[in-house]
């Protein structure tokens, strides 16, 4: 599968981070929280109203809004 952004993945799918687009302090916080290039991520699910999303990264659960997840370019990994 080709590269996509994290907000587009279905719950249960796994992916590898390629890069984080955007700029500024929010991007740095996303990096600090372990969403670094090369990190493996699993999409756990989404909030009842559809946003934010929940991910498993670096062994813990992190939530991001779709708007932030869209900044994360990933390579989906086989099921």
């Amino acid at each position: 599968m080709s590269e996509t952004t994290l907000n587009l993945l279905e719950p249960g799918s796994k992916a590898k981070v390629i890069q984080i687009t955007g700029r500024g302090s929010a991007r740095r916080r996303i990096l600090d929280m372990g969403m670094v290039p090369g990190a493996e991520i699993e999409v756990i699910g989404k909030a009842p109203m559809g946003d934010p999303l929940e991910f498993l990264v670096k062994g813990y659960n992190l939530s991001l809004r779709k708007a932030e997840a869209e900044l994360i370019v990933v390579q989906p990994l086989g099921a």
Partner: protein
Amino acid sequence: MEKKKITIALAGNPNVGKTTLFNAITGARQHVGNWPGVTVEKKTGKRTYKDTEIEVVDLPGTYSLTAYSIDEVVARDYVVEEKPDVVVQIVDATNLERNLYLTTQLMELGSRVVIALNMWDLAESRGDKIDTRKMEDFLEIPVVKTVANRAEGIDALLEEVVREADKGEHHEHEVSYGDDIEKKIIELEEIVGKDSALSGKYPVRWLSVKLLDGDENILEKIEGSSVGTQVNSVLSTIEKEDYEAAMAEKRYEAINTVLPQVCVKCVKEVTFSDMIDRAVTNKYLGIPIFLAMMWAAFEVTFTVATPLMEFVDMFFGWLAGVVADSITNPVLGSLLGDGIVGGVGAVMIFLPNILLLFLMISLLEDSGYMARAAFVMDKLMYKIGLNGRSFIPLLMGFGCNVPAIMATRTIEDERDRLVTILVNPFISCGARLPVYLMLAGAFFGRQAGSVIFGIYILGIIVAILSAKLIRGTVVKGKPSPFIMELPPYRLPTAKASAIHMWEKGSIYLKKAGTIILVGVVFVWLLSAIPAPGVDAAFASEEILGTEDSMIGVLGHVMEPLVSPLGFDWKVAVALVFGFIAKEIVIGSMGVLYGTGEDEDALAEILTAGAMSPLTALGLMVFTLLYVPCIACVGVVKKETGSWKWTLFMMVYGTTLAWIAAFLIYRIGTAIGWGV
């Protein structure tokens, strides 16, 4: 022999048991929560271990030290500027990877670090094998296993801390960023090193690393220095975003080279916690569960408390009677009976409510559900111009707006935080409840519950509309990003919940014991001093709390302002005193109507014609919306750092209150309801 003194700082990610460890070391009472960033204040404690006196400073919980939030700036400024002898980092043994990220940053700061490997038992029970000896070798940092909630490993930790503080030489740890980045670091080090003011205060390598990290706080510091232009010319040669990503990546890479060697089978698998999470964040179940949790918290707080409150009420009624009967001097009898015992009773009666509410909040926080509540509510909060994190401070507002406004420190974005602070007073606090309980109980009988519920809902609606209004006008802009950990569910401990409940209860009592009591006695005094031109003795029966006392004078001055709302001078006076603390509104009405602490007698007088259901409703709404109590105003000033915003909040609320009460009174009168 003179005791040796050292200072240590506790650092760590949120939710790793930092506060529990702080309590275990110092024995100090402090709240333990599961909401990311609950430790917003700097707390200190003392502990003597053998012949060393240890000053323990609890730093705010942080994931990193990049100055993203106030918490991070506070934590790193303390480490850099106060230079504690040892920094103890509490590391969650069940999540080494992300926790060690902070370790890499503490190492770069040049501090002596000791790791407390906490929740060791949890890691072991799920089958992780962590080799602490190897961990020490790789990190060159002492590692001590602890289980903070059972106070295990505390002495071993202190032993290691004291030994580390004693060490003469100090090994500087470094993360290696690879050739390209290292070259830039060296380049910057040379430039920054030339400014002695900077290099005297901060480690030069750390400054250089932070500059490449894009740290705004450090960039500002450099810009104002003698080497600002030189630094900028180096930074202009690099792709900023690439460097930022590469540096975070390198830090995680450094951790990942160590991790497989110190930890066998440290992999995340589906746990019980994840299973709970599936349910509470489920598309269909998430919101019903959320509502059920909130309903349960509310119900426990208000239903379970009722018999306790009746008991407190009976006790103080009895005590006031005993005091009045046993004192022959009528002035003193009135002061002690109506003024002081009445005042204390008015305070104590709400203690059951407040304790239970904070017990509920503590259970929600410590269990980990609070973060899910923010997760579930974020979309809604975002729509009204706030952030999922704003939900907790708003919910706390139902208890007391003072700690609630302090809790907004966990909101990283200054503007989100400001809006959350400004609308917080509309969330009806526990101190306003007595006003509703008394008035609704007297005027609305069996509908009292629904009326009170309606007042709470009105407060929420006003808060939402105000947030939207403020976001669209005076604080423009979108809410900040939502980047939040969902911590594992943990069983709250009875001890932690009890400590939390007691702390909040005692804060209320302290506030009550001083301000409220003083307020009630002050009202009594005003009502006992004869008005100018009235020929009567101080505190004599015929003037006490009537128009012939000083309070009558004050009320009459205020009356034209509130008469369009259907309120008389007594209500005006009560509202003025409500500024001291909202619960005094009823207490002072009791004094003004000469019924003291006896609420039934007050209700009888009010329903007999002193008020109508319509004005009672208007008064409840006015009490909800008008200027919050003096303690709340003080905390808004402290947290916003601005009198402008504080005044804005006071004027805005009071104006809304006046308009709302005016509309209720005028419309009600026009349609003939509740007159």
